[in-house]
């Protein structure tokens, strides 16, 4: 078999226009075929045309501005033109404008394209956006073009627009000077309303000095216009020509040439910035490939001859007198006396230890207990070791599956379920008896069950008979009654009465071996509903203490503790509120949060910061109370079961919360009854009862 998944990478185009087009095609989710790419490239070309048009418009506008300003300055109504002032206005005006803008930008520490020139990038985008036929593609091209322009070339393009404007201004000013002076004979001099003649002279001398290479050494003396100086006076004509040349050269050298150079420089910079620009990756290129060249190897078939099957199941009544450990870690909690009272044959984890164990198996009259570790994957190696031991002893071993809580703590519920199923499948295929029993967290029931299996007196196998749902129904009926009593749930006194009744029902059912739970129930009986807060705090503390030590600190059980706390307003008795809030486990369980908040609202110091006031409404308080009472009912009902079964039942109940982990919102009595019915159906069905 050969299977190859090829990466979809494309070589990078060398021109920015093509890079924009390619990136835009990807952004629009279109295939990069020639037709689509060509359309995108044409859109970019439209943008370029729009930019060129904008530059042209700016040039024309600059020309109009220059022409009209120059024309106005030359219209003297017979008086002489103040050439120095004219030059200062025509050249100094733009430079002052540029200077002030530069100072402003430096002060506010901002980089910005020239105001006028922004027309050019705007024209670029405007023309692309006007592309018809494929709005997604044109929007993508416009977006990518804007990104390219934003990366540096846009600012330079705006500078080109601005430079073109001032170049047009200067060029048309020069043309206008020649055009106007060709039409009329003008006088030039120092006449001004307020400027002294000396200043005019000085300006002219200073500005004409650098122009000497172009103008030679011009003699710029005042010359009158007609009729003071005849139009055909050769001296006056020459003097006027000197002035016109001076003005033209001044505009050319001090404005046109710098602006043209600036424009060319910015155009080159913009081109380089565009060439350097690379589109940001928005569709990740593949940098790997998968190749498969081999067919799957079939897993070894289970040899029916190896499996002792039903023959061994008959031996389940035989007591165990020895035990071995199978991959049980050294840092696991010590084994309970029920196991250590047996003869320890060691570990079944290597070639040598296998041989040693098998050599000590001795008489087949007694069984061996294999203490396996649930988090371990029951693979072929595990299967073979158990099978070899089974063959050596000739009698079915008892497989004690330890470490359930470790597995639950470290893996998700889906993985936990799969692992449990795999172990059960292995036991079933090998025909051996297995007992899932968390040796670190034995309850009285699981301890007696373990002892029974080890002694061969409790061969009950995997399928416990379904629990009788009648006592659960009775306690749920109590909750239902308390919904319409006076006071009714979620009132604390109603809750206390409710818990008291539930305890009475279940205490009567439980046998004497469950001393802890009986004691808890007794406390409930003693509860005085008129002194609710302290009483509930007391019994909840006691209830939490009854949980196995190993489970008490774990997230799932803390969630239950939170519900108990919410139900009894008393989680504060377990730890200081500040400590509860800092525990991530609490934060991860909605019920815990609900319980904490309820207490926190009443106990937090005034300066405790909180991001959000989560005062629950009436519907949420009713949900808290009903969920709490139902949890207590299920805990009572499940007494005598394995801890894993209790965990599973409580998990089922917790899954009936809202998706955000908070208690259900029960608007009224009817909603609460419907929720109780659903909870009852779920719990009973999960415990093998009727659907």
């Amino acid at each position, binding site marked *: 078999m050969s299977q190859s998944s090829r990466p979809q990478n494309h070589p990078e185009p060398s021109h920015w226009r093509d890079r924009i087009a390619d990136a835009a095609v990807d952004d629009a989710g279109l295939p990069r075929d020639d037709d689509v790419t060509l359309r995108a490239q044409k859109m970019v070309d439209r943008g370029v045309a729009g930019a060129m048009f904008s530059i042209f418009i700016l040039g024309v506008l600059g020309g109009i501005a220059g022409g009209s300003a120059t024309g106005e300055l030359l219209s003297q109504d017979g008086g002489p033109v103040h050439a120095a002032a004219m030059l200062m206005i025509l050249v100094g005006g733009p430079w002052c404008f540029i200077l002030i803008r530069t100072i402003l930008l430096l002060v506010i520490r901002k980089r910005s394209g020239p105001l006028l020139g922004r027309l050019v990038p*705007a024209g670029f985008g405007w023309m692309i956006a006007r592309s018809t036929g494929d709005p997604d593609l044109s929007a993508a091209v416009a977006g990518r073009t804007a990104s390219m322009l934003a990366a540096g070339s846009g600012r330079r393009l705006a500078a080109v627009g601005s430079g073109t404007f001032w170049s047009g201004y200067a060029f048309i000013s020069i043309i206008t000077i020649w055009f106007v002076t060709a039409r009329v004979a003008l006088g030039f001099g120092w006449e001004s309303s307020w400027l002294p003649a000396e200043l005019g002279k000085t300006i002219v001398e200073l500005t004409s000095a650098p122009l000497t290479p172009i103008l030679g050494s011009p003699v710029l003396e005042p010359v009158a216009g007609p009729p003071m100086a005849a139009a055909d006076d050769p001296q006056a004509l020459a003097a006027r020509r000197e002035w016109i040349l001076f003005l033209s050269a001044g505009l050319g050298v001090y404005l046109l040439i710098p602006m043209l150079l600036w424009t060319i420089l910015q155009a080159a910079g913009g081109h380089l910035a565009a060439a350097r620009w690379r589109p940001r990756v928005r569709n990740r290129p593949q940098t790997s490939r998968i190749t498969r060249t081999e067919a799957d190897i079939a897993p070894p078939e289970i040899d029916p001859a190896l499996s002792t099957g039903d023959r061994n199941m008959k031996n389940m009544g035989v007591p165990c007198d020895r035990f071995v450990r199978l991959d049980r870690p050294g840092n696991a909690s010590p084994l309970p006396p029920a196991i250590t009272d047996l003869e320890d044959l060691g570990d079944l984890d290597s070639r040598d230890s296998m041989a040693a164990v098998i050599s000590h198996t001795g008489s087949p009259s007694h069984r061996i207990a294999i203490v396996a570790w649930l988090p371990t994957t029951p693979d072929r190696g595990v299967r073979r070791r158990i099978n070899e031991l089974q063959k050596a002893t000739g009698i079915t071993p008892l497989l004690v599956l330890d470490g359930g809580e470790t597995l639950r703590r470290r893996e998700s519920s889906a993985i936990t379920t799969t692992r449990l199923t795999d172990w059960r499948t292995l036991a079933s295929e090998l025909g051996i008896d297995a007992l899932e029993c968390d040796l670190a967290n034995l309850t009285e029931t699981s301890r007696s069950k373990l002892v029974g299996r080890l002694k061969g007196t409790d061969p009950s196998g995997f399928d416990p008979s379904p629990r009788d749902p009648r006592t659960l129904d009775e306690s749920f009926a109590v909750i239902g009654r308390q919904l319409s009593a006076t006071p009714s749930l979620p009132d604390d006194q109603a809750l206390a009465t409710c818990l008291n009744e539930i305890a009475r029902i279940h205490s009567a059912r439980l046998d004497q071996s469950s001393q802890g739970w009986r004691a808890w129930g007794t406390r409930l009986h003693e509860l005085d509903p008129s002194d609710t807060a302290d009483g509930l705090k007391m019994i909840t503390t006691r209830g939490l203490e009854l949980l196995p030590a190993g489970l008490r600190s774990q997230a799932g059980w803390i969630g239950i503790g939170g519900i108990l706390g919410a139900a009894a307003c008393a989680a504060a008795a377990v730890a200081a509120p500040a400590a509860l809030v800092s525990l991530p486990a609490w934060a991860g369980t909605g019920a815990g949060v609900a319980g904490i908040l309820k207490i926190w609202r009443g106990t937090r110091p005034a300066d405790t910061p909180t991001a959000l006031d989560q005062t629950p409404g009436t519907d949420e308080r009713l949900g808290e109370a009903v969920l709490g009472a139902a949890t207590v009912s299920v805990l009572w009902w499940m007494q005598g079961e394995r801890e894993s079964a209790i965990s599973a039942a409580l998990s089922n109940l917790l899954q009936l919360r809202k998706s955000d982990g908070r208690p259900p919102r029960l608007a009224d009595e009817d909603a609460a009854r419907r929720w109780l019915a659903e909870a009852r159906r779920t719990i009973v069905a999960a415990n093998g009862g009727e659907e």
Partner: protein
Amino acid sequence: MNDSPESLRIAVVGHANTGKTSLLQTLLRRRDFGTVSPTGGTTRSVTAGEILDEEEVLAIILDTPGLEDSINLRNMIESSRTDRREDPRSLLDRFLASPAARDSNELAMEASSLEAAMNADVLLYAIDARDEPQPRHLDELAVLGMTARPLIPLLNFTARPEADADAWRDACARQGLHATVSFDAIVFDDAGEARLLDAIRTLAPARDDAIDAWRRLRRSERTNAIAGASDVAADFLIDAAAAIIVTEPTSRDATDREVAFDAATATLLDGLREHEARAMHRIADIFGFSGREADAALLEITDAMGGVDFADTASLERAGLWAAGTGTGLVAAGAIVDLAVGGISLGGFTALGAVGAAIGAIGGSGSKILRRLRGQDEVRIGETGLTLLHLRQRATIDAFLKRGHAAIEPARIETTVSETFTARTDDESEKLLTEARGHPTWSRLSRPDHWRAGRHPRASLALRIATSMSRHFDG
């Protein structure tokens, strides 16, 4: 395609269910590589993944079936030993040629793994660091040692609290293996991958060019992904910051105005939700994850907001997320923020709201006055809400940067409303967002809609915000 002889060959070996396939998924950045399952023995053949730089194959990484029965395997190999001085490699060759490896399928998977290992430049021995070192692991190391290939113990799942990396380092050191590397396939760590490549480079110096190219490839990939994701985030955030919805009341009556205000708020909320989801999907795609994971991340974000639901206006207002364009709205929003911080600000936010209202009243443009006269209001996202969205975008990128491609659990985005009060000044990009205020035409969410793609000032701002965000992730 150039599969050059200089390509580095790596075989990932180890016990069943130690995360070998997961490691490959993360190293290759491919979710579609192999099948990951909690049941052991899922990988039943050698599968190769290639690291490509353009057309060049830099490295070939082989995923191998797990060594499930190492005790039996070692026993089988060593049982054929006739001379104590015999070379272990020849023992292995003999085993691989034997019927036990060829004809019987009892150890066929182990044989397949060993063959792959013998043809590799370097072996990565995958270890689930949550397990305790056991004798079967020593059997595996002994057998792999017979291949005479350099071996790197690779500690997987080290980010989990149950992991005991020190115990494994010690156990490996006792076997003469000192180049142990921690690399969690689920919680991705850039530095961890770099350390792994360093270790491979040390043990396979002849392939240093390929490893250097691999390292460069990953570095540029990361930089590009951060830049691309920041672009997407900046684009969404400008949309959010610039959005203004002008209400359309049927009359100037207060009730009608309120109805229109609610409708406009709902429109803005819907738009924000939709655009945030879209941004999230695009960011997930940039990092090589699927839209489904982005959905999960969105869910986690909502969870992490401590009950603040975008669909619930009251909830949002309670969290101080919205500011209306009217003066009373701003004052109200300020007061709400005060409540949310438990009175710590001592009325400061209310004062700010009043100042904002005054500025709004004095500095309103002509169109605003006209709208006011028509009884129209403007709805836009409040500063706190914008900060929250900003933090969420940053947290999203961060979550995907730290997510291995083998991860199954939803991406966790730990952003809470309370962070908006503590983390709002540490990033220049957030300050830049204020420049988008007052430009409703820059937002796709504004109503009336004047959106046009390709506005240069908007793109310029987006680039600055994205650059600032990228800088945050590049450290």
